[in-house]
């Protein structure tokens, strides 16, 4: 039935299985051994409610409509006397329904103020479905388990903020070191040259990134703010 001697296939099958008898089992004894989770693992969403300005972007962008936010307006007296008092949104309720959530990460990505973070925790199974509606307090507890984002790969592009900061500092340095040179044109040229000279060191092309757009990579390198 086969080119080789009929029996060898069967014997090889036995040999492969018996070989595994000697090897150490790869089982991870879960309750005693904790899994080593990568920092980006999408386990649960944590909320830093100090950062939240109730812009409702996350609740609007969520495909599952599972983020419920209540807030109210408060007027804040202006710092300098005589100044105009501004109204500020104060967060009353921020709840995520984890039985509905599809863990896609759009809310974490779209939040302009880094109030939402991913935490790799996964042990929150419940006996009843209402337990899966995590209120603000519970989300705040998850915030303590948010790991530091990993360093980016060597070939990765430097985050935009770092590029702008370096460009700004170089410009200031150049301005300080060669004030005598014709201000306008030279400054601009130097600035461009500075950025240009700067480029290859950081693996950055001559492209200029607009400072306002905080790219995802930059934000991920900033650790969550005050505890």
């Amino acid at each position, binding site marked *: 039935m086969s080119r080789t001697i009929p029996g060898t296939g069967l014997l090889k099958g036995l040999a492969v299985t018996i070989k595994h008898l000697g090897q150490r089992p790869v089982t991870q*004894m879960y309750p005693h051994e904790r899994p080593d989770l990568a920092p980006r693992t999408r386990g649960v969403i944590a909320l830093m409610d100090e950062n939240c300005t109730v812009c409702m972007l996350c609740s609007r962008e969520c495909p599952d409509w599972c983020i419920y936010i209540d807030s109210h307006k408060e007027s804040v007296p202006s710092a300098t006397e005589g100044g105009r008092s501004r109204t500020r949104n104060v967060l009353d309720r921020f709840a995520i329904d984890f039985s509905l959530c599809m863990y896609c990460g759009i809310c974490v990505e779209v939040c302009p103020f880094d109030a939402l973070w991913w935490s790799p925790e*996964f042990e929150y*199974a419940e*006996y*009843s479905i209402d337990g899966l509606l995590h209120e603000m307090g519970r989300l705040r507890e998850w915030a303590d388990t948010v790991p530091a984002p990993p360093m980016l790969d060597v070939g990765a592009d430097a985050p935009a903020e770092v590029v702008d900061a370096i460009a700004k500092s170089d410009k200031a340095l150049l301005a300080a070191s060669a004030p005598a040179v014709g201000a306008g044109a030279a400054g601009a040229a130097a600035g461009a040259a500075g950025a240009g000279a700067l480029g290859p060191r950081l693996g950055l092309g001559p492209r200029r990134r607009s400072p306002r757009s905080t790219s995802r990579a930059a934000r991920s390198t900033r650790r969550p703010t005050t505890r």
Partner: protein
Amino acid sequence: MGLMDQVELPKPVKYVFNWGRKYSLWCFNFGLACCAIEFIAASTSRHDFIRHGVIPFAHGPRQADLLVVSGTLTDKMAPAVKRLYDEMPEPKYVISFGSCSNCGGPYWDSYSVTKGVDQIIPVDVYVPGCPPRPEALLDGIMKLQDRIQGESLKDRIAAVRRDPANIGAEAGMALDAQSLHTAAPAELGSGG
């Protein structure tokens, strides 16, 4: 089974019976969608939930007592789930694994998805995630085992007799109160 739901078993016998049910959960993998892959991952070498006594060889619903509903339950599939649940012999438990079976998950607005398997069968433990990690299933199983350890078979089967639809919810309420104050005595030499 006859007298099970009339007489309350004496403490030691009940403990041994609960221990037996706790460490021998023959599991019928009602694998529907992506969560079924994570369920299979939980049964293979890396996570191996046989360690907790959950044996995945129950091929038919008749031999199973743990039904893990993993994946999206569509309206076309709902009668089959109900029939399979009814075929299972009585002390049976259900784990709803993943957002789709919890309450519709990413397909909450689809026209053909049943929003949550608890509309059809009573669920004991909800495991969140889409798909949840295999360790999350192990965590869910251990939570279910804690409940079984503190459970009284009489209440459970009597509850089934009264209203088969929502035994999970009602028994759940009765249990939490009970399992709270009777802290589960140390298991029979766990670990190993």
